[in-house]
């Protein structure tokens, strides 16, 4: 028995290390590139021989980058917030109520999420230039919400279905209005779902490149992924690999923070103890 468990442990560690390597080799490579200087950039060393913060200095001296970082954070936070608020209510209705056209709404939501985004770029561009949303925050926030909602509704309604309906009835009997029941009983219990969804939506917005590139033209609303593609080297012949790597590392930080903060709130078994003995 004893050797078997040791073997098994070893095997697990082996697999874990393999997976971690697979996931982190490119990330470290990126980190390493961002810390190299122009001369050693292509020396083929995995670890930088003379680490330098020059690339980081460069991007933070670049006003366009700083501005795009602010754009990214603002646009993604607002999109996530709005998508979560609307998505929560919508998912609640879908999970709890019987109403005509429910199946149609779900099908539509699914359809929207399946639509290839590239097909929408030209129409969106036309519409946004026509109504003056082009190159503004709302010009990105609205499409982000549209694409985030189906995801939010699907994930959240799965969470809502897990909440015992009796709790809501109990709240009603205790004198709660439907809104109070939703706000004070249902929503707190759906929080793990809300945070999970928020993380997914935020990541999706944060990583979007297509819309960010096509629906903006200046640093007014351009987000980091798009801004990075406009980086230029010191000379036309020099590739801005170092700054791009540094920017990539920088934009990973908010998302890691976001996930870490919210992940702690994703506690399993929040509804335990609600029903039965």
């Amino acid at each position, binding site marked *: 028995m004893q050797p078997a468990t040791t073997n098994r442990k070893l095997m697990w560690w082996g697999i874990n290390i393999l997976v971690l390597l697979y996931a982190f080799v490119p990330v470290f490579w990126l980190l390493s590139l961002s810390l190299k200087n122009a001369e050693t950039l292509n020396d083929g060393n995995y670890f930088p021989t003379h680490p330098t913060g020059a690339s980081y200095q460069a991007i933070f001296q670049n006003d366009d980058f700083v501005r795009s970082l602010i754009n990214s954070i603002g646009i993604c936070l607002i999109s996530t917030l709005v998508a979560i608020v609307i998505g929560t209510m919508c998912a609640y209705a879908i999970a709890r109520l*019987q109403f005509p056209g429910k199946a149609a709404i779900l099908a539509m939501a699914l359809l929207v999420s399946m639509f290839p985004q590239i097909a929408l770029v030209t129409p969106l561009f036309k519409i946004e230039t026509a109504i003056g949303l082009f190159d503004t925050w709302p010009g990105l926030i609205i499409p982000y919400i549209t694409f985030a909602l189906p995801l939010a509704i699907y994930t959240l309604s799965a969470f809502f279905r897990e909440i*015992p309906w*009796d*709790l809501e*009835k*109990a*709240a*009603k*009997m*205790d*004198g*709660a*209005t439907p809104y*109070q029941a939703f706000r*004070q*009983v249902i929503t*707190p*219990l759906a929080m793990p779902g809300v945070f999970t969804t928020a993380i997914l939506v935020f990541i999706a917005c944060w990583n979007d490149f297509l819309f960010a590139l096509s629906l903006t033209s200046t640093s007014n609303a351009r987000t980091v992924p798009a801004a990075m593609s406009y980086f230029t080297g010191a000379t036309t012949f020099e590739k801005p690999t170092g700054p791009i790597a540094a920017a990539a590392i920088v934009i990973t930080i908010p998302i890691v923070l976001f996930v870490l903060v919210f992940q702690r709130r994703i506690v399993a*078994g*929040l*509804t*335990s*103890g*609600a*029903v*039965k*003995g």
Partner: protein
Amino acid sequence: MAEIVLEHVVKRYPDGALAVDDFNLDIADGEFIILVGPSGCGKSTTLNMVAGLEDITAGKLIIDGQVVNDKAPKDRDIAMVFQSYALYPHMTVRENMGFPLRLAGMDKQTIRQKVDEAAELLELTQHLDRKPANLSGGQRQRVAMGRAIVRQPKAFLMDEPLSNLDAKLRVQMRTQISRIQKSLGTTTLYVTHDQTEAMTLGDRVVVMRAGVVQQVGTPAHLYAHPSNLFVAGFIGSPSMNFLPGQLKGGGTVVTALGEAQLPDRSRRALDGASGDREVIVGIRPEHFEDASVVGDKPGATFDAPIDIVEAMGSDVYAYFTVKGEGASSAELDELAKDTGNDLHGTGLSITARLDAASGVRRNSTAKLWYDTAKLHLFDASTGKNLLEAN
């Protein structure tokens, strides 16, 4: 405190299922009413209609003289205890119990005081800061009770509140509920599956079957004067024995147990109905007795081939089988399904509860007596009790 009246209440679900049909009941202020019936007969539906959790399809629900059909649950001032307890898992016991008060906009100080009082009554004081997940089943049940009683509502509705507890705890909680209800004097509508709860808790019992009220009355009345086969079979444990038989002119019944002459009172109740007719005869187990113990009380005797004897100390249960088909009727079939006694063996099994002094032995024949004055006669086709005047 309130008086609750249901007038011709009907519930039809959107899918067309008729769950409750023409329900009429006057619940007096402070009364403890029990709703019993087999699974799916519409008990929860009735309760939910009173609560306001289900719409009323037709009829009137009147609380304290006011028609409340269209009032939201929160405006009816009624508290409910759910079978699942439905405690808010993210709140502590104190918050759970204080929730209705908080919604009512009471100040913190008063809430605290009321919750403390209720906790004291329910012996929950040392658990007030725990979350429901860390409580035992019985404690959860008491928190659910506490949440109902803190706000002193007009009425309590309870849907099988004890069915998730084990047998011993159920007995404890049963007496506790009874005590609390008596001391608060709050009108209570209580749904249960359990015989004992039905017989011991309520002032009156409502027996339902397939959405229709079968009989309303005190537990003792339902026991002694069931208005039909269904009530007779449902109330009482162990349940009444049913035998098919013929009622002959002159008040003689013939069953697998032989002939029996009905006493005058029963004959009068039959109203001199003449001519032979098919009946179902009902005899409660305790109306049998060992013939040697009875002496010469009026009644009928027969020879019973005893299969099994269970001595319970205070009395003796004797089981035997007599020849003949079991009494068959839709109502009895439903009862059998509900209790899980779906055994259609050959012959007709009968349970008799005899005096402890009886000398009956298994696998031997005993001379048994039964009290003809306590016989119930039911119409074989309609199931109506022929000896009861309604």
